[in-house]
């Protein structure tokens, strides 16, 4: 310890929590990147001569924000639909991490931190489900 007068740190969360959270981030990221990279590769194979300008001008994600259209696109193996799914997965990774943290805090008796983390999750869901559609 570098300062004998400082209060001792509280009981640290067990190593399993760190492993779970680290694993959640790693697996989620790999899944999202596999979806994104394979979809981009499929787009390049399908439309090798398409210019970057046309893709900048027409965002393929907008069409697939509707979950029914996304489902149809996935069933039809449209690269744009899988690209959108990859973005959803990438955005979901930190949200899942917050859920993991919330669970860990409650399970280890840290009610105050658990409630605070629940508040963070509620704010994230508010942004995605309420605020986003409102300002669209």
């Amino acid at each position: 310890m570098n300062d004998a007068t400082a209060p001792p740190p509280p009981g640290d969360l067990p190593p399993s929590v760190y492993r779970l959270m680290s694993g959640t981030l790693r697996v989620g990221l790999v899944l999202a990147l596999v979806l994104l990279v394979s979809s981009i590769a499929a787009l390049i194979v399908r439309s090798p001569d398409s210019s970057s300008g046309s893709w900048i001008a027409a965002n393929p994600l907008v069409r697939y924000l509707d979950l029914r259209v996304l489902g149809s696109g996935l069933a039809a193996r449209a690269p744009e639909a899988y690209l959108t799914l990859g973005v959803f997965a990438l955005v979901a990774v930190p949200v899942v991490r917050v859920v993991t943290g919330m669970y860990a805090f409650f399970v280890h008796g840290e009610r105050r931190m658990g409630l605070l983390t629940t508040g963070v999750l509620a704010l994230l869901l508010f942004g995605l489900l309420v605020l986003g559609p409102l300002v669209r």
Partner: protein
Amino acid sequence: MDLLEFALLLVLTGVFAGLVGSLTGLGGAVVAIPVLVIVFGVPFPEAAGAGLLTILATSSTTGAAYVRDHLSDLRIGMFLEIATVPGALAGATATVFLVHAQLADALLIALGLVLLALVPGTIARGREPAYTTAAEPDDVSRRFGLSGAYYDGRRQERLTYNAARTRPALGVAFVGGLVAGMFGIGGGVFKVLAMEHYLRLPMKVATATSNFMIGVTGAAGASVLMVAGYVNPVIGAPLALGTALGAVVGSRVLPRLRNRTVRWLFVPVLAVLGVEVILRGLGLA
């Protein structure tokens, strides 16, 4: 430029941005967004949307490594997120309204000013003495148990720390979230500032915890910009892949670097990009 060439160049840009962003805890988007606008001619709101995807990739990559090594402080990260998330939601909402009001160039100038404003602070913080003693925790810090310890590899000793002035730190974290949501950058500099200057945490813990946090901030901002149609995966996906690769390298290098080395690595890049972005916003470049 065809799609393959475009994607490969974006991956390379992402590698560089991810490396710098990881080493500084500021997020790769601080480099990636200006490069998208200046070099690739991507409109600002789409660049901001792509920037948020790079933040998500960087945070998940480096966050996983830092959490595994117990360098990120989970409690303090979660605690500050209660301020950064509403900030990011407000910032992203403001950007959507400003773009709808044809004020995207003004946002670009503001981004450039933010980048330039980061320069003196980054240099000044580099002159601060290295972390030596744990601060006196305040009442909020005691209530939430915002204390911890980590092993400093370079000094070869275990250092303890306590979060000090939590209220102003929450205010700075909110501003960090606001900037992140508005411009698509991680706002890591504000989080690092909140943790180093106010909470009085060691720089490496602050940087690692910032990397851990910026993903949640990015998800908040991305949720608004995505639904508004400003997250284009054709731009964001290759950039995010490159950023993740750069961030992996950065997170392996960080424990072996001196604090000041990390600062000086970033300052010139920041200044040049800031000036370029302002000129672009003014229509002079």
